[in-house]
């Protein structure tokens, strides 16, 4: 049985929303400023833990797009596929390329093939945290 606190709930909701946006920011800005898939995944993971502390596993799963296992599997697949994609251009495994596009309003935009790889890392870190919380947190729920 979980004793839920209204204040904690509301606060956590606000923090979690911010954390998720921050996490995505870290993920996409990682190539040029501090951040990257690993750190972004950790921020997302902490948001998961906050949700768990506030309301248990079920609340945590509200912000988890898929189950931990699926998260791990799709993240790893994405990273490996990004590596294989290098072969299609006749390059080595995991060889990266990037393109620069000038968009009307946003200005110069750089898209690197390391981004999908980093998204894979991101997904795996989230999956790992979710898996740990589910594994250690199920059963003996907060009393």
């Amino acid at each position, binding site marked *: 049985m979980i004793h839920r606190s209204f204040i904690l709930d509301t606060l956590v909701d606000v923090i979690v929303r911010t954390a998720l946006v921050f996490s995505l920011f870290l993920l996409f800005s*990682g*190539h*040029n*400023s*501090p*951040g*990257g*898939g*690993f*750190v972004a995944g*950790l*921020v997302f*993971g*902490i948001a998961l*833990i906050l949700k768990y*502390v506030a309301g248990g596993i079920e609340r945590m799963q509200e912000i988890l797009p898929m189950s*931990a*296992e699926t998260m*791990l*599997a799709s*993240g*790893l697949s994405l*990273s*490996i596929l990004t*590596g294989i994609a290098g072969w299609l251009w006749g390059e080595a*495994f*995991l060889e*990266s390329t*990037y393109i620069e596009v000038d968009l009307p309003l946003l200005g110069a935009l*750089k898209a*690197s093939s*390391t981004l999908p*790889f*980093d998204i*894979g*890392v991101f997904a*795996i*870190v989230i*999956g*790992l*945290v979710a*898996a*740990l*919380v*589910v*594994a*250690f*947190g*199920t*059963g*003996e729920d907060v009393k």
Partner: protein
Amino acid sequence: MISVLLFCALVAAVCGALGRRLGTRVFLLGALAPAAMIAWLGATRSGGEDVVTEVLSWLPVLGLDLDFRLDGLGSLMTALIGGIGFMIFVYAWRYFAPRPDLGRFAAYLVTFAASMFGLVVANNFLLLFIFWELTSITSYLLIGFDDESAAARTGALQALLVTGLGGLAMLGGIVLMAQAGGTYSLSELLADPPTETTALAGLALVLLGAFTKSAQFPFHFWLPGAMSAPTPVSAYLHSATMVKAGIYLIARLAPVYALLVAWWRPTLVVVGLLTMLVGGWRALTQRDLKLLLAQGTVSQLGFIVVLVGVGIPELTFAGVAMILAHAVFKAALFMVAGIVDHQAHTRDIRRLNGLGTIMPATLAVAIVATFSMMGVPGLLGFVSKEAAFEGLVHERLGWATLGVVAGSALTVAYGLRFLSGGFMGKPESQTDQPGDVLISPPRPTFLIAPIVLVVVTVVAGLAPALVDDMVVSAAGSVDPVATQYHLAAWHGFGVPLGLSALAIAAGWMVWRWPLQGLRRITSRAPDATHVYASTLAGINRFADRVTAVVQGGSLPVYLGVIMVVTVTAPGILIVRNWLPPPAFTFAESPVQAVTAALVVVAALAAIAASRRLAAVLFLGAVGYGVAVLFVIQGAPDLALTQLLIETLVLTLFILVLRVLPRRFEVVQSRIRRVVRIAISLGVGVFAGAFALMAAAGRQAPSLADEYLSRAEPEGGGTNVVNVILTDFRALDTLGEITVLAVVAMGVMALLMGRHRPGGGDVGDDVDGLVEGDRRLDR
């Protein structure tokens, strides 16, 4: 060749995906794979070239390239893999009752066909090994397809262990031979064979692998065990193709090494003959039609090993012809056994009666295929056996000839046993017993595949010229001298025909007068299966004992061992090569000094804390302090990561602490306390010394500048840390995230078990953890 392999992989994937929807028709889809092999082979051979090669660099550092080479022998084997494979798929379409997992089965079967094809066209020795192992693995999956049957699981494991261990020996042998010969290319190795001692040791190991794969004595026992596989698997893998892999390799090596190595010929002939006789004799005592055929296959494989093993052109030629003939008639026989099983629901010859009158077409197929196996004139089996006898007589191999004739007599005897046991007798007895179902003849489409194979046997037996080209070019590709021989439907009256007649007559006599006394004696002889079983049991007992000693279950002991090893092994090196740190600065700024002091205080507090929660919180403080130090040093990425990790670890710690006692228990024993303090101090001193020495120990110039200068132009990013992680050293990252994913899965599997009904013993592990901690306190 690569395109054929890729196409097969695609077919396998589609079969796996569509299996549920297509039902048994998935096999018609799977048949596309062998059909593609045949089409490709036809197109390639019509090009007129003797040898077709295709090379793609893969791992040049290891000498491992995608080096494919199709020659005569490869073509013959591909024809078998594709041709018989196609028939097997058509047969499986009718053999199986619809079930949801047939897609998986079809996918395995296609994967096997592709691996086998890769094996016979691989020209790189390591590549050949990879395909070799793939056939072992797919064979394991196919034998164990019925995974709820204990017999299927045991048979699959036995086959995998025997062929897998042989494969391991072979890998060692391949490396030895290639190191001695200076190349992994099979064609180059055979053109200039290495003969120093290491190369010959390698050769012996390769031969060992070939023997296990081709079920040669004393490794023959796995083949009958593999008979718990569905019949299409037995017909395809365990008679027509996979068990020929060893023979294929021997056929390649023999013409070269038979003359160079003194022990080669005696070994091959003795092992082959023993296998032929043991298999033939065992076949005579089998009551299960499939086991009878399996022992017969062992015997025939022994025969072929003798022929291709001696490395004499005429016998190599006969052996290659025998590979073809055996594949065709034995696949048909297995299919017949499968049809009998399918219609009569038993393969026990004591319960089968008078099937001949119920299913005359099946009987006709069985008779032709068996007669081909026994060497009755007019059939392909006779043509190849005559070629063998003629070669043996020409070469005056007296006692080998004698052994082969004796083995052939046994072949005739168990052939007759198969026919009479399976089909003869009076049909009415089956309806006498209550509960027996009326046996109906098989559907015509069920018979297509064996009928086609039997037609091949007859046509090629009457007009061997049709297959002569293929056999001559196959034999010629391993031994150019062998091209002067040709298949003949009739060799005229002579010694070989006399030997054939002698074998048939003797075989008929053995079948009529079953030599009861001799049987009783041999039934007491040690059985290889028992040796295997007791070896396995012994290994398991040994492993249990070792585990009991090494894995006592006490967490403190494990941790202690890990720490002591960490400290002593690299610690000795540090003490021996101590380098004083260069210019030592106590602190670069007051902020740094204060933060460091706080870290030290927190660490001391963690030691002094008597409550677990307090200790964990102090540890967290240490971590946050280090993060602040990173910030001061201007490493935002590191600091961010450190902060987040620290937060996560802290929360996870708290989740675990809920199941642990609140306070650390006080260690009563003085000795234990001293040991623990000593270990802790040791680890601390070691870590400090290591950090100091690492700063002083740089020997190569730092890579940092290199990374910094190349990050923007090559990686397209200004955050060097991230560019290193996702680009420069992305392979390392890939390895790390793979570990993460595996760990996450493992944690879930271990800890979630305790919430599943009946998963109690897994959950006990957590209690065991707590238990271990208490044990430490005692």
